[in-house]
């Protein structure tokens, strides 16, 4: 799950990035408000962690600008501003969660997962498709009750596809989900991961739409369509 971290404090930003990476997130870190707005407009992040006291552009302004631009990704505001009016203003401006520093990394990760899940219309903590159960918190995958060992990228790829079940994701979109900036991506990396996933989970789960991309069909047609 690729998220944007906007935090101007070098130590805290570094710590959050490292911690969220440990917990399976792909993290891009920006240190000022303008960069945060630019990245949020340009990249399909699953969620954003936004500090409020950002250089060049206040976090609140970033939030307002992003919401005005019609970007609906979940935004978690992480700030030292604990006054109730500030919290209310943050939530009113379109923050999905408002967390006061300091925060436990596991809690932050859990909140982010919950935000992403809800933003995809998934009320449950695990994702299911054709007998495959994916638990984002435990980073585990079960197929018909048996645990399946997946590499990090494979898990992230499956996670993205299952989150967007019923939607075709292009190779570029999948790359954006899996890699943060500056990471070298082999041109056939996605194909390789898909190949591995199919080998481990069977070829039925992930379908190829030729010339477009890949999709995991929705489990129950009666369920509300994700996004």
């Amino acid at each position: 799950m690729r998220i944007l971290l906007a935090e101007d404090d070098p130590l805290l930003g570094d710590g959050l990035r490292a911690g969220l990476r440990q917990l399976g997130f792909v993290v891009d870190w920006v240190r000022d408000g303008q960069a945060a707005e630019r990245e949020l407009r340009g990249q399909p992040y699953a969620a954003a962690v936004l500090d409020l006291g950002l250089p060049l552009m206040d976090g609140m302004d970033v939030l307002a600008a992003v919401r005005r631009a019609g970007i609906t990704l979940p935004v978690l505001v992480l700030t030292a501003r604990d006054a109730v009016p500030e919290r209310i203003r943050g939530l009113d401006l379109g923050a999905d969660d408002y967390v006061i520093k300091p925060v436990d990394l596991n809690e932050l990760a859990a909140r982010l997962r919950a935000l992403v899940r809800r933003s995809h219309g998934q009320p449950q903590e695990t994702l299911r498709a054709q007998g495959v159960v994916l638990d984002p918190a435990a980073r585990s995958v079960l197929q018909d009750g048996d645990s399946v060992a997946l590499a990090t990228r494979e898990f992230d790829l499956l996670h993205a596809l299952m989150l967007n079940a019923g939607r075709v994701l292009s190779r570029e979109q999948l790359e954006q989900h899996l890699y943060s900036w500056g990471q070298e991506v082999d041109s056939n990396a996605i194909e390789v991961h898909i190949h591995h996933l199919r080998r481990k989970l069977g070829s039925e789960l992930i379908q190829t739409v030729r010339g477009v991309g890949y999709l995991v069909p929705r489990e129950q047609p009666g369920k509300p369509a994700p996004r």
Partner: protein
Amino acid sequence: MKAPASLQGRLLLLVLGMVAGVWLVTAVVTWVDVRRELDELLDGHLAQAAALLVVQQVHDIEDDDDGVDTPSLHRYAPKVAFQVFHKGRLALRSANAPAAPMVADGERFKSGFRTLTIDGLTWRVFAAQGAKRNVQVYVGEQTDSRAAILWAVLRGTLWPMLAALPLLALAAWWAVRSGVAPLRRLARTLAERQPQALHPVVVAGAPAEMTPMLDSLNALFGRIAGLMDAERRFTADAAHELRTPIAAIRAQAQVALAESDDALRRHALEATLAGCDRATRLVEQLLTLSRLEEGATTPTGPVDLSALTRREVAEAAPRALEQQQTIELDAAAPCPVQGDATLLAVLVRNLVDNAVRYSPQGARIRVAAARHGGGVRLRVEDSGPGLAEADLARLGERFFRVIGSGQSGSGLGWSIVRRIAAAHQAKVGVARSSELGGLAVTVDWPG
């Protein structure tokens, strides 16, 4: 006499005392005046009567009966007496007049006024002689009658006054009471206020005399409110400012705990330590500031600002280089100032630190210490973004951080710089650097 504690009582006492005093003076003046007028009038009557007696010079004055019976026609009549002597012999007298001439013992007076005592009674006597000097007339009047008249006149004026006194006291009490009513209202307003209430006191219908007091009071409330507000803000901001370093320490420690890669764990642990150092620095700054706020320190001795600035710039240089910033120093000549070396070092450090901290990568920073117009000037300039006018004005408020300034500053540095400068009678100026385009801070020590 102990002064009454109540203003109302004091005013009442004062007003009534004054009224009584004025009345007393009035009475005395009336007494003196009436007595003089009365004396004049009655003396006139005596003289008139004597003149009548002299002029009459009754034909049968030769009659040897000296006891002419004069009718008592008026209640004052017994108090008036007369004697007519013809050729030394008593020719005529009133019933109450003695046979001997109404003169004092051993005195022979023939004309004019005398006041004398005869048989224990005090008389006012007028003596007159006929033209041929063989008629001697004495007309006398007991002075107690005059006193009685005087008393009657005074009674006439004093009684109404005395009767009016309670009414006057009541009126004065009411007047004083309503006069000090605004004071009572103020007292009630103050008593009813919540202890923490610091809004201005408003007293309806406060007289002009109370306005300065109310103004001072409200100004005091304003100052206290400002102080308490600053104090509250300080506490809130201090807590707020400590949140970020603590959050960083927590995050890094958690990363270190969970990290299996040695290099990454080491990095996280080092970052944890750096976070602790930063929190420590923040706490130190808070303490410095609170110590500075306790009272101004007095300069202790000569300090070479140039040497001190060189040391501080050398200390800050690695951080500047990390950000590819160019830091220039111009502090060749010694610049002696009076002061506390430790505090002055804190001042210079904060200024240089701010310049490094708030300037972007690759910025230029120039620090200069030089003699300037008899004094010493420290100048720290940078090519950073500078500050907007509004932000320039707020600089130095505790914890005021320019929003979007980046970096982990607490905003305390400025407050500290200003305090230390004030303690050294140095002036801090903030402006836009004409050469580098960023912020230019000058600290001037007078010569």
